[in-house]
């Protein structure tokens, strides 16, 4: 017993290091998860809702920003966009005569779309037109991720509204990702880097009317993301390299994915019927992939899955009388390597080109 006590005493001597790490994670909090949580996102939402762009934002909860923004807006927009970062170039640039709000969130999933729509329901109604960016992973239950958990009560409330009382399909993790991050070594490293770069207070965002900056991204008032000039003006070779690097590190959404999930398809079907019953015009948007990714990096099997999913969405749109735009295959929408920022993200001009291919909304 003495030996056991001695061992536990020795191990306990390492606890101060763990304690220090947790304290730094909570105080520096580079992703605004703990002490800076909510106030950071509310501030961004306030600026956007007041009709200004926001610069110098990083590491924030995009779902919460959408939630707060919808609550703070004075009225309802004419049109909204629900999707991922792949649809963040759709906005007033394409529909100058309409009040458009792009509510896309990075890695957007069906759970996010439901949660955001519920916020509109609470606001008083759903906008008359919705562009859904139907990414391949939208119907993949293995890739819902954990980000949606920030607005999980809204997602569950919308599921109830659609007649899906079971919460099994979108299961929130037992331990909140925020809690695990408190003990994360990577988060600690980011916190230390943040302290060196910006001090303990961090470098705050600010309102701006600029639409493009040299070195940083801007969140535009219509919800679009404006990438920095340095990011946009890269050579084809640099874009191709980024495409290859990014793709090999984050191609997870293709894993464990043989065909669209039946349960998820049912929810999407119910959601579309619900929206149509409220006279909402729904448009599907298939965001293209960089040609190198689509033609070279995707194995034939995975390419086949993409084609099947695209066909599945096309059939779905046909059955429900929905308009559908774009294609995962860049060649089908006439895009080349230079039309992309990286592996997943078509440029603003490329997206405008797709939407101009004969659609009147």
């Amino acid at each position: 017993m003495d030996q056991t006590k001695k061992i536990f005493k020795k191990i306990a001597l390492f606890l101060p290091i763990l304690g220090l790490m947790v304290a730094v994670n909570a105080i520096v909090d580079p992703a605004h998860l703990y002490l800076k949580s909510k106030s950071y996102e509310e501030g961004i939402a306030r600026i956007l809702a007041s009709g200004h762009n926001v610069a110098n934002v990083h590491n924030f909860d995009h779902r919460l920003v959408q939630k707060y923004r919808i609550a703070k807006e004075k009225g309802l927009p004419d049109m909204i966009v629900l999707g991922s970062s792949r649809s963040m170039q759709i906005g007033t640039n394409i529909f100058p005569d309409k009040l458009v709000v792009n509510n896309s969130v990075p890695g957007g999933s069906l759970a996010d779309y439901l949660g955001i729509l519920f916020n509109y329901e609470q606001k008083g109604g759903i906008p008359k037109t919705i562009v859904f960016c139907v990414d391949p992973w939208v119907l993949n239950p293995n890739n819902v991720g954990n980000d949606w958990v920030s607005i999980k009560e809204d997602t569950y409330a919308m599921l109830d509204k659609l007649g899906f009382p079971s919460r099994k399909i979108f299961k929130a993790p037992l331990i909140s990702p925020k809690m695990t991050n408190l003990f994360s070594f990577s988060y600690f490293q980011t916190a230390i880097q943040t302290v060196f770069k910006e001090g303990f207070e961090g470098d705050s965002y600010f309102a701006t009317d600029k639409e493009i900056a040299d070195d940083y991204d801007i969140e535009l008032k219509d919800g679009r993301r404006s990438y920095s000039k340095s990011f946009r003006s890269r050579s084809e070779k640099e874009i191709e390299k980024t495409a290859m690097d990014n793709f090999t590190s984050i191609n997870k959404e293709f894993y464990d994915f043989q065909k669209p999930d039946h349960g998820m398809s049912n929810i999407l079907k119910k959601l579309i019927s619900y929206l149509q019953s409220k006279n909402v015009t729904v448009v599907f948007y298939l965001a293209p992939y960089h040609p190198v990714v689509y033609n070279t990096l995707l194995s034939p099997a995975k390419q086949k899955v993409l084609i099947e999913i695209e066909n599945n969405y096309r059939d779905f749109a046909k059955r429900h009388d929905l308009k559908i735009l774009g294609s995962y295959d860049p060649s089908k929408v006439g895009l080349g390597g230079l039309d992309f920022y990286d592996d997943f993200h078509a440029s603003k001009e490329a997206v405008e080109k797709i939407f101009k291919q004969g659609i009147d909304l």
Partner: protein
Amino acid sequence: MLFNSIKFLIFFPIVTIGYFLIPFRFRWLLLLIASCLFYMAFIPKYILFLFLLIGIDFTAGIMIEQSKEEHRKIYLIISILSTCAALFVFKYFNFFNNTAAGLSHFLGWHFKPYHFGWVLPIGLSFHTFQSLSYVIEVYKGRYKAERNLGIYALYVMFYPQLVAGPIERPYHLLPQFYKEHSVDYERITGGLKLMAWGFFKKAVIADRLAIFVNNAYADHNSLGITYLIATIFFAFQIYCDFSGYTDIAIGAAKVMGFELIKNFDRPYIAKSLTEFWHRWHISLSTWFRDYVYISLGGNRTTIPFWILSIMITFIISGLWHGANWTFVIWGALNGFYMVFGRLTSGIRDSLAQKTGLSRHPMLHNGLKILTTFLLVCMGWVFFRAKDLGEAAHILKDIFYKGNGSIYGWLTHITSADNYSIIQTDILNKIGPDQFQFGCGVLMVVVMLIFEAVLGEKLFSQLALGWKAPARWLVYYGLVIAIIALGVFNRSPFIYFQF
């Protein structure tokens, strides 16, 4: 389950505490269940296949022991064939099939190869060799067949060394399952220290260097000098990755009272290729020595037969690592080094005497170490490249092509412009975290200093007898280095793929 995952950090203390809390007679069962869960964290269904192999080899062991002389060999062959057949189907079927298809295409025939689509079970090559070692030892009468199926299953599946060794021998590991281990302060803290050292090597050095290596090898337009640096970094990456894994495995087993075979002994201070192979992946090298090389005649044969047995042993060893021609060439190259080393040892010794080099042992040994390291690095190019074309391209760029190559450096006066191009290429491969990368490279030096201080001892024996402040400085430094400088993207260990 990866050692460098949160799951393992929860799994390991639970299993260890449970192991010491329950009565001795149930401990093997707990370890077996834990090992099954550990294995099932990868692809659960493959455990059935592993059970089948365990059943075959366990039965074969008993049958070999109980049968008459003329039947014993039959049971041995059945056991070896079934174990090797599994390895062949999962690991080599597509390789040989595609090679045959390529050959038939070359000859103008049309043979469409069937593609075997099942993923290679994790650690198959390791537990296959451990099983083979068991039946061969029983056949040779050097070890009695195990009568407890559970204990035998644990011998094959013991979770610390299940997926990447060290490849154990029955006479070393099996008796340990019958010994009762108590809580021992020195042993447990020694095991934990060794585990921490393994995590340090993996997270702080191997995964950090991997960033540069992966970027350089992925870019076919890298400069020769960049490829050269990447290959040297790869030498330390693979060493820290695999020996780091081994340290965690040996440390985890040690905490519970089990001693596993030492697998590495400062390989990069080897003065010859023969010495290198006595220091690198020792459990595999000795396996090949005992069961392949000696069976082929070993040292007690004529020079031509000796050359043949060395080449066969190393080519099989290369193929064991992976079903790719790059591994075959890597094995053959090492075999060639061994043959060349032995055949020229007399000439080299007399040359050293004539030039006076042998009178300066420090310089002479330093040159030997450097030459051995560079030869090993040349082999690593084949080990790391995805195919022979890529390996040839990289070697050509290192030695010959352009200003960034060795030839370029020797024949051109490198201008400031060239330095700037080289600097840009290297910085591109390092990526945005230049400070952390610099620290990672510095940690290679720290590791080498620690290894020099330790000599043949393991890290668990470091600082014994030191004063408390010095000891705790090392412990805290190690933990802080892991937390602050480690890469935590849960990258699998390189040897898991084998």
